[in-house]
């Protein structure tokens, strides 16, 4: 069981989707690079909810919020880029 938590756990989860990568550029387009897609989205959302401790309401988000590591950090971890 992983002991990594918070934002690092989110990165770690995304890396499991592309085992050929060892890191993800914060501005890399996650959708274009097939790290995140619609079929994998809900499981990813639950990772985000678990790590932020908050349920994410879909009416409050847009697809662009999930496009890059930086946009995820900014939108869900309330940190600047």
């Amino acid at each position: 069981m992983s002991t990594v938590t918070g934002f690092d756990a989110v990165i770690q989860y995304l890396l499991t989707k592309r085992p050929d990568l060892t890191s993800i550029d914060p501005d890399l387009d996650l959708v274009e690079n097939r790290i995140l897609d619609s079929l994998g989205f809900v499981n990813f959302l639950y990772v985000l909810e678990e790590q932020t401790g908050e349920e994410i309401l879909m009416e409050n988000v847009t697809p662009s919020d999930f496009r890059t590591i930086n946009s995820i950090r900014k939108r869900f971890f309330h940190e600047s880029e």
Partner: protein
Amino acid sequence: MSTPVLQADAQLQSILDRLVSMSERDHYDPYTMFDWPETLPEDQYWMTPELLSIHGTKVAESFTEEQKWAISKWESVNFYSLNVDGIRELITEIIARIHTKDFALSSEYFHHMIGEENSHMWFFARFCLLYGGKVYPDKGVQLEMKSEGESAHFLVFARLLLFEEVVDFFNKRMGDDDRLHPTIRKINAIHHQDESRHVAFGRQIVSHLHRQLREKLSTEELAELELYLKRYLRKSVDGLVNPAAFKDAGIPNPYQVRNEVLADPAFHELERKMLKRSMSFLVNEGIFTDDVLPRS
């Protein structure tokens, strides 16, 4: 002039005619046919216990019977909410195709499907709202551009078929389970009755469209379709385990419980049972090369 996607086929036409007759014969008024008691008893199961996501899992060993009853209530609300979401997609996709040149052959039957699915969505949503106070929201997002063309038609009908088959696994068993409240049994039994026709149609159209694609697509392109559908099945199965349902049932650490359930061999055994019929069909039709799904 291009040929329609759904080309004239004597066998398919005969099946469609028969399904239309059966739909007419079994037609009912959903708004008057159910009893809706004000409340349902909370000291019993709302889902067949063996069909709960937690059944037989390690994490369930620490739950009391009362906690399992609560999970069964909220997992049933989640299950019917997934039905509402799936039906919304189904109706939208069928509406987009009805009376187009490509689907002229099946348009008469599409009218029956749309009507029946609208009834299903109404009684599933009513159950959720009446006994759970909400329909769990669809957490999906369309991130990529939607594909078009014949492959897209195939994937739409394959998704709809697989959604219906997974749901029907539960409906058939819960409709027959006399441990469940009569209202719960009835909505499942009625849905099973209608879905058996929709599944019969779905299998015909999916086989038909895939046969046409096999003549046009490369092995690599067909493998991409297979992977997409396997990942769709993974998403559908995982969607049955909703942390919000655990939270509403008063279970601490709902996300951790979800992760443990998804990793538990008992859940994979339930998954194997619920997908057995679909997997046999997909492998026998040559749509899948094996019955192995990707991990969560």
